[in-house]
C-alpha cells in the first residue's frame, strides 16, 4: 500500500510571530522555519504503517518554494521513501494546494493520503477536506487513532466533547490531530540517507493546474494587548465594576 503524506514549511512553533509594521502580513524575516507539527505527525504515522508492514512506500509531497525541499528532506530523514516538490511562488491558498495534491494523487495512486488537520501558519483547516472532495475519497479528519483493516481504514476522530469512530473505504484521506502519535526525531544516519533519496520536482504546469487566487489578505494585526488587572476591596466593589465598567453582568 502506497501512502502519500503532505508536508508544509511553516514558521517554527517556538517562534513568537509578529505582524509587520505595515500590517500586510506576518514578519518572516530571519525567522526559523520548520515542518508543520501536524504534518510531522502525519509523516510519523505513515512511517509507523510502513514499519508495521502495512504500507509499502511512503511519499512526502510539499507545495511551495524551493526552500520547502528542506522540509521534504526532514520527512525523508524521518523515514519517508521519496519526495515530491510542487514548485510554486509566494502564498498559495488551500484550494490550489488541494488541486495540486489531487494531481499528485492521480499520478501516484496512493491508497491512503495523510495530511495535518491544519498548518500553524494560516490555520485554515481546509486542504484535507478539499482534497477529499476533489479526489472523491472518503475522509477521516482530526484523527487520534487509525487502523488499516483490509480495504478499509478505521479512524477515531476527536470531536467536540468526545470521540467518533468512522470506517472509510480505501483509498481515503486522513488528517491528523495532536494526539495521534509522538513524532520521532531524525537520527544522523537517516539524515545522511535522506540526502540520497529521490526527490522529484514538478511545476503546476507539469500537473496541468492553474495557480489562481480567490483570496486577498487585507490586514494582519497582533491581538490586543491585555490590560493590567486591578485589585478590588470587597465583593461589593467587584460586583459594581462588573456591572458598570465591564458591563458583563446586569
Amino acid at each position: 500500500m502506497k501512502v502519500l503524506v503532505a508536508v508544509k514549511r511553516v514558521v517554527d512553533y517556538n517562534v513568537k510571530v509578529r505582524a509587520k509594521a505595515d500590517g500586510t502580513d506576518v514578519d518572516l524575516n530571519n525567522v526559523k522555519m520548520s515542518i508543520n507539527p501536524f504534518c510531522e505527525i502525519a509523516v510519523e504515522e505513515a512511517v509507523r504503517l510502513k514499519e508495521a508492514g502495512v504500507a509499502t512506500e511512503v511519499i512526502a509531497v510539499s507545495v511551495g518554494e524551493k526552500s520547502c525541499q528542506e522540509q521534504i528532506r526532514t520527512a525523508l530523514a524521518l523515514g519517508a521513501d521519496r519526495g515530491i516538490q510542487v514548485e510554486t511562488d509566494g502564498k498559495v491558498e488551500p484550494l490550489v494546494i488541494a488541486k495540486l495534491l489531487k494531481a499528485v494523487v492521480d499520478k501516484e495512486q496512493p491508497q491512503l493520503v495523510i495530511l495535518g488537520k491544519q498548518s500553524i501558519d494560516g490555520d485554515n483547516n481546509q486542504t484535507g477536506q478539499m482534497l477529499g472532495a476533489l479526489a472523491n475519497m472518503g475522509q477521516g479528519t482530526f484523527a487520534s487513532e487509525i487502523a488499516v483493516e483490509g480495504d478499509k481504514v478505521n479512524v477515531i476522530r476527536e470531536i467536540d466533547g468526545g470521540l467518533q469512530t468512522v470506517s472509510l473505504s480505501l483509498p481515503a484521506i486522513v488528517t491528523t490531530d495532536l494526539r495521534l502519535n509522538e513524532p520521532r526525531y531524525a537520527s544522523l544516519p537517516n539524515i545522511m540517507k535522506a540526502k540520497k533519496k529521490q526527490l522529484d520536482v514538478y511545476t503546476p504546469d507539469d500537473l496541468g493546474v492553474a495557480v489562481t487566487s480567490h483570496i486577498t489578505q487585507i490586514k494582519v494585526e497582533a491581538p490586543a494587548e491585555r490590560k493590567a488587572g486591578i485589585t478590588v476591596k470587597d465583593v461589593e466593589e467587584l460586583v459594581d465594576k462588573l456591572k458598570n465598567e465591564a458591563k458583563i453582568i446586569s
Partner: protein
Amino acid sequence: MAIDQTYPEIRAAVASLCSQYQGGYWRKMDAAKAYPTEFVQALTSAGFLATLIPENYGGAGLPLGAGCAVLEEVHRSGGNGAACHAQMYTMGTLLRHGSEEQKEQFLPAVAEGKLRLQTFAVTEPASGTDTSRIRTNAVRDGDDYVINGQKVFISRTEHSDLMILLVRTTPREQCVKHTDGMSVLLVDMREAVGNGLSISPIDTMMNHASTELFFDDLRVPVCNLIGEEGQGFKCILDGMNAERILIAAECIGDARWFTAKSAEYARERTVFDRPIGANQGIQFPIAKAHIQTEAAALMVQQAADLYDAGRSAGAEANMAKLLASEASWAAGDTCIQTHGGYGFAAEYDVERKFRETRLYQIAPISTNLILSYVATRELQLPRSF
C-alpha cells in the same frame, strides 16, 4: 542571522532531540550534580556523537563543521554538551595516530555507542598549563607499561569506558625538546579502576562530572600505545585544535541562547510603564553582545573550514575559542543584568548557563595562554616564559 546556517538539517534534528530535554531536565541534573545519562544516550543512539567518525568505522564521516553544528545546537537549546563533547575530539587522536588494529577494535564500538570514549587526561596538579612538566609516568615492563602519578580536573571519567592518557615515557631532562618524551596510551577504565587507578570526584561550580585520578602501578598493555613512543604531544595537538573549535561552537550556542533570552525578556518585561527593552541602557548591551557573538561565529567558522581543509588551524582555533568564550560571557552577563533579580532565580536557567559558560575562558586552555600563543607565534614577540 546574516549568513546561512551550516548543516540546517542536522541543526533541526538536534534541536528537535533537545526539545525533549528542556530547562527542567537540566535544572534537575544541576541541582543533583547528576550526569545527564538519558540525554547522552539519546544523542548517542541518534548517531550525533559519531558525526566525525569515518563511515568505514560506522560513523557519519562528516567534517568538523558538522560537529560544531551539533554542539552549538545543544547549547543554543539551553542544554550542555560538556557531558559528552569529548567523544568527538578524543576520537581524532585514535583515528589519526592509532594503528589499524586499534581503530578496528575501538572505533566501530564507539560509533555504535557500545563503548564510551569520553575521557582525555592531560592536566596535573603540579604542571598546570605547562604540559611538558607532567609527572605521571609510564615505565616499560615486559608487555606492559606501569603507570604512576596523578591527574586533576579530568572530566567524565565515571561515565567513560576508555581514556586517552598523556604520560611521560622519558624524563623531561633527558629530552632534546621539552615536548618530546611524552606518549599517549589508551586505557580501558573498566579494567583499570580498582587495579591501579582510583577516581575521586571534584565538586565544582557547575555540574561537570570532573574528577581527580590517582595511578598506582596501573598496568596498561604496550599494544595500547597510540602512535610512537615519545611522540605523544604531537598526537594530541591536532586533537586539541579540534577541541578548541568545538568548544568555541558551544560558546556560540550559549551566546545565542543568552541573547535570545535577553531580547525576549526585554520586549516583555514592563516597568516604569514600558518594556525595559525600550531603554537604551538595556537594549545596547544586548545589541553589543549579539554583534560580538556574530563576529566570533565567523572566526569559529573560519577555523573549522581551515581544519576541514587540512590546513594549519592552530592560530584560528585559539582565536575562535578566545573570542567565542568572551562573547558567551558578555552575552551571559548582559542576560543576567537584563533579567534583574530574575536572572538569579534558577527557574529562568540564566544563572545555570552563566555558571556553565564561564568555564570556557579557562578550559581547555586559558585566555592568557592563547594571548601568549598569538603574541609569540603569530606576531613574533619575545617569549615571556
